[in-house]
C-alpha cells in the first residue's frame, strides 16, 4: 500500500511544487530569523525589534493579528511558522498555555531578570512589562483626595461623571477579574453595577479617548492604563488632554494598584527556537527593559531598571501583588459579570 | 401545382436517400414530456415544415435535431450517421447543421460581413473572403457588408441570418419561426424569396412555425404537430383538402363543422341536407359524423336551398369572407366574389358544393 501508488506520489510532488510556485511559499530552512505573531500594535514593537536585529543580525518577521491568533496557531499545528507570541495582557497568555500552544523556556538569562510573579511557574510565558490601571480625574472639577480606590467609583455621588472603555476589553476584564479575586463575586457585582450607573456615556473608544473626554468636559473621572499618559504627553496635539487630569494610583492604603502585563511566549512547535530564545532574552535584558520604559512608558518587570521622568514624577506606589494566574482564572466570570450588569449597553 | 397523389406517394424522390431520419424520439422539456415517439424522414433537397400551435413540441424537435436537446428514446440520423442516441449525442458544432432563429440572433458587435464569415473560421483567409462575398452577393447584401446588424431593417437582418447559416454549407438548414418577427407584408415576401432560394440551391431544410402561411410557402411537406406528436405528415394541398383528423381540419384553414350521420355508403345527412361522398364511406349506417365545410364549399346561389343571414363580413380583395347564420342557427363561413355584396343583416341564399367530403367520426365535442 505504501509503495503502491507511484502515480499518487508524483501527483503530490507536482502539487507541492506548483503550490510553492503559486504562493511564493517560504523556502524551507532559510536564514536565521524569528517569526512573531503579535496582538500588540506593531508600532509599539518595531523599534525594539529593529534594535535586536541590528545587534544580532537575526531578522524578525511579524504579523499583527487582533482576532483569531489562537485558531491560527491551533490549526497550523506542528507546521506553524510562528516562534513567538506577543500579547498585551495576561489573559491571552494563559489562554495560549491552556490551549497547549506554548512550550516552557528554561533560560537563566530570562528568569534571572523577570521576577517570579511576572512569569509562568513552568516557564510557558513571561511578562515583559507591567502596566498600572490608574484613575485619572479632571484637575479643575475633582478635588484631590476625593477618589482613592477603585471602590470609590461606585459611589452614587459620581453619577454621570465616569468614562471607561468597553467592559469587555481585556484591560477592563482583568480589572474586574482582580476585583472578583479580591472581593468575591457578589461584592464585585455590586461594584460594577454602581460603576455602570455612574457612567457619563456608553463605553466607547480606547483609554486615550477617555482622557480626551475629560479634557473636553464630557466626564470627570476615567480608568486608564498609565502609559497612555506618556503617549499623550509626547504628542503635541494630545498634550493638553494629558495636562487636564490628575493621576491617581488607587488602593494605596490596602491591596495596591491593579497591574497587568504585556508578555511573550514561545510556541510549542517554534521552528527557530534558538533565535527566538535569544530575542526573548534580549527583551528581558536590561537594555530591552530600558527601551520599553523609554519608548513606551511602561513599567519594567526587572527590578532596578531606572524609571523614566514621568514615572519618577509619579513616584513609587504600592502594586497589587496577587498572582496574575489567579486574576486570569476569573476572566470568564468577569466577562459574564459585564454582560449581567449590561455594562456596555 | 403538382398532383396531390403524386406528391403523397413520394415517387418523385424515390432515387434519393434520406438525409435526416428521426426515429421514434421522445424529449422532455422542463421535466414534462414534450415530444412523444416522433418520427420523420427528410430527403436530400427537400424542404419540410413542422407546423403546430405554441407548446406542441415543435421547437423541441428542432433543438433535438440541432443537438441542443437530449432524447429519451429513439435516435436521430443525419446522412446515415447517428447524431443523437439515448444518453449520447454529437455536439451541435460537429453536426454540420445551419440554424436560423426568430430573433435572427445576429452577433451585434460584428458587421454583416463578419457575421456571415463567422462559420467559416476553418477556411483560409482568402477563400473565406471569397465565400462570404459570394454569399452576400447572392443575398443582395453587398452594399451593407460593413454595417452593423442594428443598422439594418428586419428583412435585411433576416437575410444576413440566412447567409450566415448557409455560408458554411451545412448539410441541413434548420429554421425556427424565421419570419415571425417580420411584419405581414415583408413576411409573405421573404417567405417566397427564401423558398425560391432554398429550392434553387437544393438546400435541405426543416422549419418550424405556428403560421400555416409560412408553412405552405416553404414546405414541400408539412407535419402538423399536436401535443408532442405529428398528427399528419402531408403536402399542404392534402392538409387543407384531406385533413386526417379533426385537429388538423380545425387548425388548417377556415371552416366549420356540421353534425350529421351516415345514411348510405355514398351519402351523409346533415341539417342542411343530404351530401354525397366521392369515396365510399367506411362507417355503418347512422354513425354520427362531423362534416368539414370550407368557405369555398358554400356557394352563393340566389336560388339555393339554404337561407341564411349575414352576421359579419371581411373584405379580402377579390373575395369577401362572410359569416352566416342559417334559420336553424347553424354558423357557416362562405367565400363570395366581391360583386356579390351584402351588408350585415341581409338575407342570402346559398347552396353547398362539396367536391370532396371530409368527414370524421363524431368523437370529440364540436366548437
Amino acid at each position, binding site marked *: 500500500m505504501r509503495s503502491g501508488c507511484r502515480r499518487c506520489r508524483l501527483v503530490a510532488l507536482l502539487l507541492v511544487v506548483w503550490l510553492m510556485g503559486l504562493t511564493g511559499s517560504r523556502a524551507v530552512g532559510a536564514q536565521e530569523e524569528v517569526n512573531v505573531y503579535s496582538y500588540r500594535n506593531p508600532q509599539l514593537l518595531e523599534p525594539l525589534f529593529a534594535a535586536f536585529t541590528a545587534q544580532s543580525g537575526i531578522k524578525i518577521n511579524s504579523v499583527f493579528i487582533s482576532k483569531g491568533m489562537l485558531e*491560527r496557531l491551533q490549526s*497550523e499545528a506542528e507546521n506553524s*511558522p510562528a516562534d513567538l507570541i506577543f500579547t498585551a495582557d495576561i489573559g491571552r497568555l494563559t489562554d495560549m498555555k491552556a490551549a497547549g500552544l506554548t512550550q516552557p523556556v528554561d533560560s537563566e538569562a530570562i528568569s534571572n531578570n523577570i521576577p517570579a510573579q511576572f512569569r509562568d511557574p513552568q516557564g510557558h510565558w513571561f511578562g515583559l512589562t507591567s502596566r498600572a490601571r490608574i484613575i485619572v480625574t479632571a484637575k479643575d472639577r475633582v478635588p484631590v483626595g476625593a477618589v482613592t480606590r477603585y471602590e470609590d467609583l461606585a459611589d452614587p455621588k459620581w453619577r454621570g461623571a465616569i468614562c471607561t472603555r468597553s467592559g469587555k476589553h481585556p484591560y477592563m476584564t482583568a480589572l474586574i477579574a482582580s476585583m472578583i479575586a479580591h472581593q468575591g463575586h457578589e461584592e464585585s457585582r455590586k461594584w460594577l453595577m454602581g460603576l455602570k450607573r455612574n457612567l457619563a456615556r456608553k463605553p466607547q473608544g480606547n483609554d486615550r479617548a477617555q482622557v480626551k473626554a475629560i479634557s473636553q468636559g464630557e466626564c470627570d473621572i476615567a480608568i486608564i492604563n498609565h502609559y497612555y499618559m506618556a503617549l499623550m504627553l509626547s504628542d503635541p*496635539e494630545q498634550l493638553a488632554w494629558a495636562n487636564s487630569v490628575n493621576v491617581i494610583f488607587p488602593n494605596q492604603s490596602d491591596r495596591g494598584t491593579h497591574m497587568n502585563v504585556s508578555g511573550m511566549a514561545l510556541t510549542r512547535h517554534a521552528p527557530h527556537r534558538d533565535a527566538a530564545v535569544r530575542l526573548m532574552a534580549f527583551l528581558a535584558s536590561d537594555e530591552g527593559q530600558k527601551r520599553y520604559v523609554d519608548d513606551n512608558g511602561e513599567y519594567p518587570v526587572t527590578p532596578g531598571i531606572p524609571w523614566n521622568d514621568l514615572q519618577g514624577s509619579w513616584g513609587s506606589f504600592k502594586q497589587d501583588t496577587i498572582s496574575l494566574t489567579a486574576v486570569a482564572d476569573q476572566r470568564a466570570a468577569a466577562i459574564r459579570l459585564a454582560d449581567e450588569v449590561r455594562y456596555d*449597553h | 401545382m403538382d398532383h396531390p397523389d403524386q406528391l403523397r406517394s413520394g415517387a418523385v424522390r424515390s432515387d434519393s436517400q434520406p438525409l435526416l431520419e428521426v426515429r421514434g424520439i421522445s424529449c422532455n422539456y422542463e421535466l414534462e414530456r414534450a415530444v412523444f415517439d416522433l418520427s420523420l424522414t427528410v430527403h436530400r433537397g427537400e424542404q419540410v415544415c413542422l407546423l403546430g400551435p405554441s407548446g406542441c413540441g415543435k421547437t423541441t424537435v428542432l433543438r433535438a435535431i440541432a443537438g441542443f436537446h437530449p432524447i429519451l428514446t429513439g435516435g436521430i440520423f443525419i446522412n446515415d450517421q447517428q447524431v443523437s442516441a439515448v444518453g449520447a449525442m454529437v455536439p451541435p458544432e460537429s453536426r454540420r447543421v445551419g440554424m436560423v432563429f426568430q430573433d435572427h440572433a445576429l452577433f451585434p458587435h460584428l458587421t454583416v460581413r463578419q457575421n456571415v464569415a463567422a462559420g467559416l473560421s476553418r477556411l483560409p483567409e482568402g477563400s473565406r473572403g471569397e465565400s462570404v462575398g459570394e454569399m452576400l452577393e447572392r443575398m443582395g447584401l453587398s452594399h451593407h457588408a460593413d454595417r452593423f446588424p442594428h443598422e439594418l431593417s428586419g428583412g435585411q437582418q433576416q437575410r444576413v441570418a440566412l447567409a450566415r447559416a448557409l455560408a458554411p454549407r451545412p448539410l441541413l438548414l434548420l429554421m425556427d419561426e424565421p419570419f415571425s418577427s417580420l411584419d405581414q407584408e415583408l413576411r409573405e415576401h421573404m417567405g417566397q424569396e427564401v423558398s425560391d432560394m432554398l429550392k434553387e440551391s437544393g438546400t435541405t431544410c426543416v422549419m418550424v412555425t405556428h403560421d400555416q402561411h409560412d408553412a405552405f410557402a416553404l414546405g414541400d411537406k408539412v407535419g402538423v404537430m399536436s401535443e408532442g406528436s405529428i398528427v399528419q405528415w402531408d403536402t399542404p394541398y392534402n392538409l387543407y383538402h384531406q385533413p386526417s383528423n379533426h385537429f388538423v381540419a380545425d387548425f388548417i384553414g377556415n371552416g366549420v363543422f356540421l353534425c350529421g350521420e351516415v345514411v348510405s355508403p355514398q351519402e351523409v345527412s346533415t341539417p342542411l341536407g343530404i351530401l354525397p361522398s366521392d369515396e365510399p364511406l367506411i362507417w355503418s349506417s347512422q354513425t354520427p359524423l362531423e362534416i368539414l365545410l370550407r368557405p369555398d364549399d358554400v356557394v352563393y346561389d340566389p336560388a339555393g336551398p339554404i337561407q341564411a343571414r349575414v352576421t359579419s363580413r371581411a373584405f379580402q380583395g377579390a373575395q369577401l369572407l362572410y359569416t352566416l347564420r342559417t334559420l336553424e342557427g347553424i354558423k357557416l363561413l362562405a367565400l363570395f366574389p366581391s360583386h356579390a355584396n351584402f351588408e350585415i343583416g341581409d338575407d342570402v341564399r346559398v347552396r353547398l358544393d362539396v367536391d370532396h367530403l371530409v368527414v370524421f367520426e363524431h368523437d370529440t365535442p364540436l366548437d
Partner: protein
Amino acid sequence: MIMATLVSPTVGAAVKLRRLNRLNRWTVGAVFAALLVFIPIGSVLFLSLGDSGDVWPHLIGTALPEYVGTTLLLLLGVGVSVFLTGVTTAWLVTMCRFPGRRIFEWLLLFPLAIPAYVMAYAYTDLLEYAGPVQSSLRALFGWQSARDYFFPPVRSLGGAIMFMGLVLYPYVYLLARSAFLEQSVSVLEVSRVLGKGPWQTFKTVSFPAARPAIVVGVSLALMETLNDYGTVDFFAVYTLTAGLIDVWLGMGSLAGGAQIASSMLVFVILLIFLERMSRRHQKVYQQASSRFKTLPTYSLKGWPSALAFGLCALPVIAGFVVPVLVLGQLSIVYFDRSWTPEFKSYALNSLTLSAGAALVTLLVALFIAYARRLRGGRVLRVATRAASLGYAVPGAVLAVGILIPFAIFDNALDALMRDWFGVSSGLLLSGTVAAVTFAYVVRFLAVAVGQVESSLEKISPSVDMAARTLGFRAGQTLIRYHLPLIRAGLLTAVMVVFVDCMKELPATLLLRPFNFETLATYVYRFASDEMLGEAALGSLTIVAVGLLPVAFLSRMISRSRQLYPSPSTGDA
C-alpha cells in the same frame, strides 16, 4: 452553379457520439468551484456543531436579546434610509429636469467609494464632543460642558444607521435608476395622457414597475449591513456580528461564535431569497423596454427645482464631500507622519492583491454563470447559491473558516511528503497571499456572479445556438461571441470586486503573511488605537482608488441607453 457543392456527401470522421453524462465538464467544474468556495462556510457550520458549553443560557439571559434587537433595528433603519434616499434621488434624476441633474446622475454614486468604517472615523472626528462642530457650538453659546446642552451621540445606533445608510444608498440608487430608465416609455406617456400628475404616475406606474430592482438594491445594502463589523465595533453598537466576536474572543467559545454566525445565515438566506424573487419579477417588468426613446420628464421651476436640487445634493455632501474634507484636512496635518516609504508599499500591496483577487473572482464567476447558462439544473443552482453565502458571513468568521481547512490540507500534504520523500513541505497555503486571495474570492463571488449572470441574461439564447451550429464549441462561443457582448458587465463586476477587496479588513488581518500590510490593515492599526490622524491618508487613498470603478460605473450609466443595441429595434 455553386450550389452543387453545398451538399457534402460525407460527414468528417470527427463526428462521434459523445456520451451524455448528467454532469459535463462545465457542470463538474462549476460545482467543484462552488464547493471550494463553500468550504469556509461549511467549516463555520461544522464549527457550530461543537460544544459551546453554557454560553447560550448565559447569552439568552443577558446580551442576546440586545444583539438581536439592535441588529433588527439597524437593518430596519438602514433599510428605510437607503430606500428613501436611493429611490427619491433616482426618480428625481431620471424623471425630472432641474439644474445640476446631469452632474448629480453620477455624483450620487460617489459615496459608494467610502468604506463604512472610514465614514465612521471621519464623522466621529467631526461630530464628537471634542470635534470642531460641538466645540464651535459651545464657543458660540457659551456652554461649559456636555451637561449644558443636548447633542445626539455620534457613536450610537442612530449614528451607525445614518452613516451606513449614506454609504449604502447608492446600491438602491443604481438599480432603481436603471429600472426607471428601462420602463416602457409608452406606459408613462399613457399615464400622463390620462392626466395623472408626477406623484400619481410615480405611485401607480413607475414605482410598482421598479419595485423588484429596488428590493434587490435594498437587500444588497442589508447584507452589507449585516456583515459590517468595523463600524459597529467603533461605534460600540452591539449587533449579532459584534456579539459573535465577543462570544468567540471574549468568552473563548469559537463554537458559540460559529453558532451565532450560522443563525445569522438565516437572515442572509432570507435576503438572498428576496433578491432572487425580485430579480425574477424584474425580468417580467422590464421585458418591453425600448431603449432608444427618451423618457418624458417633468421640468421643474422655482421652489420645486430648488427642493430637487437640495434632495440630491444632501446625500452627496453628507456621504462624500464632508468625509473627504475631514480626511483631507487630517491627511495634510499628519502628512509627514503618514507618507512613509512603507505607505507606498502598502498601497502597492493593496492594489496588486485586490486586482489579482478581482480577476480570479471574475473568472470563477464567469465559469459558474456560463455553466449555468449551458446546463441549468437544480444541483448547479443550489451550488451557486451556497457559494454566494460568503458575501454575508462576517469576514473574521469567514477567515477562521478558511484557516482551519487550509491548515488541515497543508498538514496532510506535509505528512504525505514526509512519509514518501522524507521532506517537509511545511505550510503551503496557510499564511500566504493565496489564502487572502481565496478569502476575497469567497467573500465577493456573489457580487461577481450576480453581475455576470445578469449580463449574460441579456444575450438571447439563440445567439449561443447560432454560434454552436456555426461550428464553435461552448468555450469558443463564450470567448468569441459572449465576452465582447458582456465586456461592460464584466468590467463593472471586476471593478466592484476590486474596490470591495481594497476595503476588506478582518479576513486580511487574520490570514495575511508575515510583514504584509494593506491599506486597510494599515488604517485599522491606527484607527483601533484612536489615532485617526495617522489613519487619514490611508483612508483617503482607499477612497480615491474606490472612485475609479465608481467613475467607470457613472460613465456606463450615462451611456446605458446605447449599451446593448438589440438587432430588432433598428428597423429603418
